[in-house]
């Protein structure tokens, strides 16, 4: 975005960036909630979902938000009020911090960190903090158990995620997300330039591990024990109501969107199309209209990935806490390590 807005004064740039960040977080979150949570889930259960608010219930989300905003902001009597109020905001802030490294086009980005992937993984772990203190400060046993479970799970799946990303980083030779996008779109598979080199093919295991880890990080079924409503009522969210619950709710789906964006950047070629289609060779050649087409391409890829996340969420029962940990430590991490090893050997050989 800096490249686009060179003439705009600094305060204007900052304002636009904040607005852009809000759009980049809230728009996917809203779309995901409507398309997948309201409609796809209902259709999978042979019903129509919300139909009353707006055509095909498209305004339902606003109705829900309005409802949540009206509700009383309840703080339990014995809770640690200040921390209790702070927790959801930490979770949402983590999402906003995450979105700033995602590139949406050749010049459409918020920040261009050299260590973009690393940064994304780092700030995504901040949300653990929010969840943990939400669970603790609610003064509720279910919340505490939920918070502890969430923290244990998020830490356990942080590791396979980092390791899965490592394969991509080795292949691309950079941690910068923009450069990873370019590397995928300028590369070639088996000598064919036309499809570029999306790492979903060469890093297939990495992709699968990454998606599983995302599923766990987002606490979606089959990894949703922290909020398991049939066991822990709602886990760390049990005591939250109104506005603060809404923040958790938005945070959940916004994070799903942002993680899917990062996955599409890492494995599906991000905002780009294979550069050979238009005869581009490097990022400098990319036409300016990609700044507008890019976000749309990105959005499509994101929706595709979220579709898979949600499809699995609506189909599977949940694992038990110890099975989840076992799966992470005994299944995903060794495979991820093996993947890194093979990738680096192949990288050196070829």
């Amino acid at each position, binding site marked *: 975005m800096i490249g686009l807005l060179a003439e705009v004064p600094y305060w204007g740039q900052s304002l636009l960036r904040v607005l852009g960040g809000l759009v980049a977080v809230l728009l996917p979150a809203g779309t995901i909630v409507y398309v997948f949570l309201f409609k796809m889930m209902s259709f999978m259960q042979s019903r129509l979902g919300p139909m009353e608010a707006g055509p095909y219930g498209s305004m339902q989300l606003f109705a829900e938000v309005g409802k949540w905003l009206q509700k009383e902001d309840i703080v339990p009597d*014995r*809770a*640690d009020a200040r*921390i209790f109020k702070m927790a959801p905001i930490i979770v949402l802030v983590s999402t906003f911090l995450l979105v700033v490294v995602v590139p949406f086009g050749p010049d459409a980005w918020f920040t261009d*960190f*050299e*260590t973009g992937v*690393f*940064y994304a*993984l*780092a*700030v995504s*772990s*901040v949300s*653990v*903090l929010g969840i*943990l*203190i939400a669970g*603790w*400060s609610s*003064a509720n046993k279910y919340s*505490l158990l939920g*918070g*502890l479970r969430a*923290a*244990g799970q998020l*830490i356990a799946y*942080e590791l396979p995620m980092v390791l899965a990303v490592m394969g991509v980083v080795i292949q691309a030779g950079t*941690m910068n997300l923009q450069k990873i996008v370019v590397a995928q779109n300028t590369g070639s598979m088996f000598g064919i330039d036309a499809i570029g080199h999306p790492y979903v093919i060469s890093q297939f295991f990495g992709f699968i591990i990454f998606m599983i880890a995302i599923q766990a990080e987002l606490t979606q079924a089959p990894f949703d024990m922290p909020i398991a409503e049939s066991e822990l009522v709602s886990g760390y969210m049990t005591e939250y109501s109104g506005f603060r619950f809404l923040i958790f709710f938005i945070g959940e789906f916004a994070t799903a969107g942002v993680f899917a964006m990062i996955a599409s950047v890492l494995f599906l070629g991000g905002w780009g199309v294979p550069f050979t289609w238009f005869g581009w060779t490097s990022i400098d050649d990319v036409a300016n209209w990609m700044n507008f087409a890019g976000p749309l391409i990105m959005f499509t890829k994101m929706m595709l990935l979220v579709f898979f996340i949600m499809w699995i969420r609506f189909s599977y029962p949940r694992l038990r806490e110890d099975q989840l940990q076992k799966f992470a430590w005994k299944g995903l991490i060794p495979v991820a390590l093996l993947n890194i090893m093979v990738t680096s050997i192949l990288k050196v050989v070829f």
Partner: protein
Amino acid sequence: MIAQNIGFWIIATVMIFAALRVVTTNNVVHAALWLVVVLAGAAAQYILLAAEFVAVTQVLVYIGAVMVLFLFGTMLTRAKIGTESDLNNSYKKLGIPVALVMLVAMGVALVSSFGDEKLPQTATVVSTQEISDQIFGPYLLPFWALSFVLLAAVVGAIVLARKD
């Protein structure tokens, strides 16, 4: 540079205040959260010091893992909601002069040795590649040693925390 200076002072003030709260608050979980503020501030200072990679590592390891471990630890040892009275021991009175004396000593030493020396203006961000070249070049042996330390820590922590 002015913006960086202002940034430094704001962050430094917040950090010092938060650090004081860490050692004075009567609530273990609050102390941990104040420590998060200190660590986040430190990460910001690292960026000011042109160490982006270290800053990100700081966030990943400290805020993402170490602080969560701390919170885990406090919750598993039944941290109460609200304040606890017996967090300080009888050396509390001794601690203040000790800390002040050390601060004065260090302050004198720092002023006399660096005076008003300035940091280089044209610092470029240290790239990840430089760091990795260093780690896997001259500092390989410490890296190996560190790996063993981590392995030993993992094994040790598991052995300690096991029930049977």
